[in-house]
Every structure is written in C-alpha cells, then in structure tokens.
C-alpha cells in the first residue's frame, strides 16, 4: 500500500514537473562539473539560511543545453552560468561582453543575471612553475620563443575555434610538438616532465597543488567566462529577500584562487560538495564528521532508490500496457504489424542517451521526459516477444479455438495470451532488467535515480560516488530478475511450466 502511494505521489510529482514551481520552493540547478555543483550548493545553503523559500536541488543536469532549457521551462529557477557561455552559446552574440548588456538582453526571455561573482573560468595555458621560472615564461606570447616545448592538449581545446587553432593565429605560435591527450592524464604528464604546456580551466583545483603557472593572455584572446547566477526573473520578484541576499553574499566575493581551492577541496581531497560550500560560507552548516557525510550518502541512496524504482516501475508498466496490445495487433494484422515492429525496433537503435536528449525539446527535463524515453525503450522486447509468442502457437490449437466458437476476446484471454505467457514474461523480464540499467541515464536530463550519483561521480572523477550509484543499480537489476522468476510461477500456467 505504501509503495503504491509512493508511486502515486511520484506520478503527481511527474505531472507537475512541466508546470511552474509550486509556492515557496526555489529549485537550484547546476551543470555536471565540480564548480557548478559547488556554486549551486552554496546558493542552496544561502537560500535555506534566508528561509524565504524551501530549496529543491536539481543539480548535475549535464551541459549548457540541458541546464539552460531546464531554466527556460521553469523546471529550475536558477543556476550558475558564465558570461562567455551566455553570449556565445545561449544568446549567440559574441559582442555581448558586459554583464549589463547581457542582463538587458536576457530580460526579454524572462531571465536575469547577478553581477560577476568575482572569478572567471576561462581556458588558459599552464606551465610547471619551475619550468616557467627557468625559461622566463610569463605570457602566452613568450611561448613563441620556445618552439621546443611539448604541448599536450585536450581534444576539445585542440579543435574549438576559441581554443588552439585561434590562439596560435593570434599569437603567431609554432609549437611543432602538440599531442592530444585525455585531460586527467595530462596532469601526470606535466608533473613528470613528459609535457610542458597544457590547456586548463583557470579555476582548476589542481593548479596550486601541482605548482602550475598560468600564462597571461595579454592579447585577450580567450573570451571572458565570468561566473554569474542566471535566474528566472520571477524568482527575484517573488523572493526579493533571497535574491538580494544571494547577490550580496556572492557578487565579487569569489576570486579565482578561492574557487580553485574549493574545487581542490572536492576534486583532490574528496570532501563532499556540501562541505566545500559550507567552508566557503563559513559558520556552522558544515557537516563536520565523516560518519555524518556517510549517513547523508546513505539517506541520499535511499531517496534515489525510490526515484529509480519509480522510473523503472512506471516506464516498464507503461511499456507493458502499450507493448502487449502492440504485439497482439502485430500478430493479428501482419502488414500493420511489420510496420509497427520496425518503428519500435528503429527506436531501439537510437542510443538511449540520445533518445533522452530528444525528449528535452518535446517534454523539457526531469522525470517526465525520462519516463517517456524509458517506456519507448522498454517497448521493443515486450511487443516483440508478445508477437513472437502469439505467432508460435500451434495452428491446430488456434483452429480448435475457432471450432469451439470461443469468440475473439475469450480466445485471446483464455488461449492466446496464456499460451504465449512464457515469451511475454521473458520480454517483460528483459525490459525490466535493461530498464534498471538504462534508467541510470535519466540523471543526464534531471530525471533522478541512481544515475544522479553516477553523473556526479563522473563529474568529480570520484569512483566511490560512481559505485554508490552503480552498485545499487546492479543489485536492483538482480532483484527484479529474482522477482520475475517468482512472478513466473504465478503468471505462467502450471501446465506450461517445466
């Protein structure tokens, strides 16, 4: 009973995702990388301290596209963004540089931004400090004098126009020894002296620890990526005290070094995000002890288990309700059936993550669109197996059903479906077990579930957090498998069991 109530509650919650935020709630979003998580958590804790509204954290939404659309569709109320991203990616007008200009332009979209928080997270080139000292490297232009230096760049930086291709033209650089390398590995290469120059983000937590020096962009090639808060205007109007407090507490208060330290706290020291945020805010909100954070993690896993279950149960349920009739129709009307099954099979060839992304323009973000995508994904095994099961029934048995004049419906319920029960159950089993896995991707569009931890773990490069999401998902898949083995005993007629 309690489970069904929870499912009902989740359904209602799903229904409300698309609409505006309910009274007294501020939904804080973030992209899925450390800095964004930390800033969002800082915002969330500040909102809690003001007490004007309840906080809902909808963090780790992925890249700019998903997160911005979430804000646009009012699935979240604010998130940390960067001026360079606003001008280039969102407003698509690189001439907009100043905060005032951006704010004026965003007004038409019902959005607003805070002033700059104080730091910029831009591309930068880094060299080991001792090496920079020895070679007298201060500015990017200085690299032109040292063509012997070995550069290791991430593939994004190597290809983007605002990365290496534009940079070398602006500064007239000729570094013949440029290799492409996975970012995380480049730190090691540069520490060991196997590489001399790498691309970094200016608030990278590793800079200080590895004693790296940023080369000055004296020709102002890299666009300005100053951090700001991007919010819906109604947030500022409905919760003026909160918005004022956020601006007061954050505008101009975080410099690049401070941000890099906070990032290092999470990335290198493995502190929980809440703790890093609390460190910045000072005061007593810090969950000090390790056991406290473990308890928090367990509590979170509990919540995510429920939301993961909801994702799986509702989407597989919908796939059953849709898939079995589709299989029946396919078996009855061959031509329609072939068309129908091909369409469903085609859906299956769309990578799950892409399918989830396609949902965003149609249904926004959150649990609702995730459920739609997962249901579509679960459809094929169920429809296909129902079809296969029905087609495999001995023709004589079907003819006898006609001779006995059972009628369409009775024949379907009394003969056809029970005889196909093994195949149909196998399809449902496949759908359920794979959906437990696929549902972890829902987190990429803010759909909740265990994927939330996996996405966060990936963003923070934290294996323990990834496992905290992946291991329960595997267990749940096993659980479903076992559950269906039991269900077989109920659903599959005794006469058919071996």
């Amino acid at each position: 009973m309690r489970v069904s109530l929870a499912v009902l509650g989740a359904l209602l919650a799903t229904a409300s995702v698309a609409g505006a935020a309910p009274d007294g709630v501020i939904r804080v979003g973030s992209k899925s990388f450390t800095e964004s998580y930390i800033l969002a958590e800082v915002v969330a804790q500040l909102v809690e301290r003001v007490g004007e509204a309840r906080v809902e954290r909808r963090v780790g939404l992925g890249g700019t596209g998903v997160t911005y659309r979430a804000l646009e569709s009012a699935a979240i109320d604010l998130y940390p963004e960067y001026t360079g991203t606003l001008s280039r990616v969102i407003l698509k007008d690189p001439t907009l540089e100043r905060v005032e200009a951006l704010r004026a332009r965003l007004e038409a979209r019902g959005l607003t931004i805070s002033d700059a928080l104080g730091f910029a997270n831009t591309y930068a080139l880094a060299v080991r400090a001792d090496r920079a000292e020895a070679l007298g490297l201060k500015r990017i232009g200085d690299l032109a004098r040292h063509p012997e230096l070995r550069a290791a760049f991430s593939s994004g930086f190597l290809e983007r126009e605002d990365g290496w291709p534009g940079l070398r033209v602006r500064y007239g650089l000729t570094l013949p020894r440029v290799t492409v390398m996975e970012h995380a590995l480049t730190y090691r290469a540069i520490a060991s002296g196997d590489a001399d120059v790498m691309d970094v983000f200016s608030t990278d937590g590793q800079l200080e620890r590895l004693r790296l020096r940023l080369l000055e962009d004296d020709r102002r090639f890299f666009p300005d990526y100053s951090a700001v808060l991007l919010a819906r205007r109604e947030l500022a109007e409905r919760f003026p005290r909160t918005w004022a407090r956020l601006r007061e507490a954050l505008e101009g208060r975080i410099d690049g070094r401070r941000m890099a330290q906070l990032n290092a706290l999470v990335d290198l020291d493995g502190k929980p995000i809440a703790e890093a945020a609390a460190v910045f805010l000072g005061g007593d909100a810090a969950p000090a002890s390790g056991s406290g954070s473990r308890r928090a993690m367990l509590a979170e896993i509990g919540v995510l288990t429920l939301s993961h279950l909801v994702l799986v149960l509702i989407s597989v349920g919908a796939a059953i309700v849709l898939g079995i009739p589709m299989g029946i129709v396919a078996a009855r009307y061959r031509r329609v059936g072939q068309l129908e099954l091909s369409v469903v099979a085609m859906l299956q060839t769309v990578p799950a993550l892409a399918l989830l992304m396609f949902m965003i323009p149609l249904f926004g973000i959150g649990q609702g669109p995730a459920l739609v995508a997962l249901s579509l994904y679960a459809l094929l095994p169920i429809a296909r197996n129902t079809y296969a099961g029905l087609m495999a029934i001995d023709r004589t048995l079907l003819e006898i059903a006609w001779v006995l004049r059972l009628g369409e419906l009775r024949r379907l319920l009394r003969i056809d479906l029970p005889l196909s029960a093994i195949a149909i159950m196998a399809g449902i089993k496949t759908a359920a077990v794979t959906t437990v896995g696929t549902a972890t991707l829902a987190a990429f569009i803010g759909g909740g579930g265990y994927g939330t931890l996996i996405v966060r773990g990936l963003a923070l490069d934290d294996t323990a957090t990834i496992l905290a999401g992946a291991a329960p998902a595997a267990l749940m898949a096993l659980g479903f498998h076992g559950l269906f083995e039991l269900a077989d005993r109920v659903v599959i007629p005794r006469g058919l069991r071996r």
Partner: protein
Amino acid sequence: MRGMITLDQVTKRFGAVVALDAVSLDVRPGVTHVLLGSSGSGKSTVLRLILGLAPPDGGVVSVEGTPVDATSRDRLVARMGYVVQDGGLYPHLTAADNVALAAEAHRWPRARIAARVAELAGMAGLDASMLRRYPRELSGGQRQRVGLMRALMLDPPILLLDEPLGALDPIVRAELQDQLGRLFAGLAKTVVLVTHDLREAARLGHVITLMTAGHVVQQGTLSDLEERPASPFVTKFLTAQRLAAPASAGR
C-alpha cells in the same frame, strides 16, 4: 434421404499441389463414415473443408443442406465436434477446463458444466481424478478421451475425427476403438473419421471411402472393397495393410 454432409465435385489446391480433385461424398445421418487412405491422400483436407477451416477452390461442401461459406460456416460449425490426433488439448488448461471451454463460451452455469463434464467422463471411460490434471500429466489414451469429451461437450449432431487414435500404442488403440464404436452407436451421431488404418476402418466404419492422391477410389463396406475392388489399387492397399499387421489378419 438427403445427406447430412455432402461434397459435390470439390477441388482444393495448395499452391501447385492438388489436395482434392473433384471429390464427391455423401455422409448419411447417424452413420460412421470412414475416410481411409495413406498420408497425403487428402482425407484430412476433407474434414477441414467440412469445418469451414479452409474454403474449396471448386465445388460445394454442404452441411445439413446448407453450403459452407464465409457467412454460414460460423453457424454450421456449431453443429460439429472436432477431434484431432493426440487430443489437441490446450497445455495450460486442466482436462476439465479443456472440456468445459465451449460451454464457458455459452455461459453455462458452473454446476451444469461440472455435471456435464462428469457425465462425459463416464461416457469416455476417463477416471474422474484425471480431470484436474494437465494434458502433459495424462497418458496418450487419456488425452484422446479428453479431446473426445471436449468435442461432445455441447452434444453436436456431427463428430469429425482426424486420426484420433494415431498416436496410441496398439493395445490402448484397440481398447479405444471398441469404446468409440459403442459410443458412436449409442449416441447416434453422424461421424466422419479419418484414418490410415484398415482395421480401425473395419471396426468403426459403416461406410468406408478409400482415397488416394486427392481422388476417391471406392466407397462401400469393407466386404464391398474386398470382394468388388473398383481398381487394382484397392486390393493393393488392403493387402499391404494386412501384411503389415499379421496379428489381426485372422480376425
């Protein structure tokens, strides 16, 4: 008297294969009419056409004077019971549920169904304790009895049996043949029974129609076939069957 079931110049093709070639047949009411022939002779196809499971390509099949076609077949099939080899039982239903299916569709009350199932079990010689079993828990003979009970559930005047005893061992087979003979006589049904077994035809059939390759070779009693064979094939068929089963030759 008009035939209960008649075939008039009926032809049936499956692609290039001619299964029935201008077959005419007249089954009298209350008579057990055996279609005898080896496999591929078209005898099972005759049953399927009578039931309306497949339409003829030429000629007319009539049941109780009405031609079997797309509009009439639904009504006519209600007059017939159909038994196939090994019973054709639904594996997911118990014996009793298999037998009860047609009555369920007619919304008979539970008690009436139970009473009729019990009555049929007695008639078919099936132990009542077998009724709760699933088909795979029954012997071949028991399955066949259940199949027969199912066909008789609504007491149709016509009974069509397609190699009903084909899958049984000789002893059970002989026992069931006797039982079927008594049953048909007692119920006064019009029966069309398909078999490849001469002894079965001899034991059960008032009339025997010998078929080969989609043709009727001869129609008559066993002694007609033995004493006045219409063609050398008749003698050949009878002799081959006798040689194959010497144990019953002296009967």
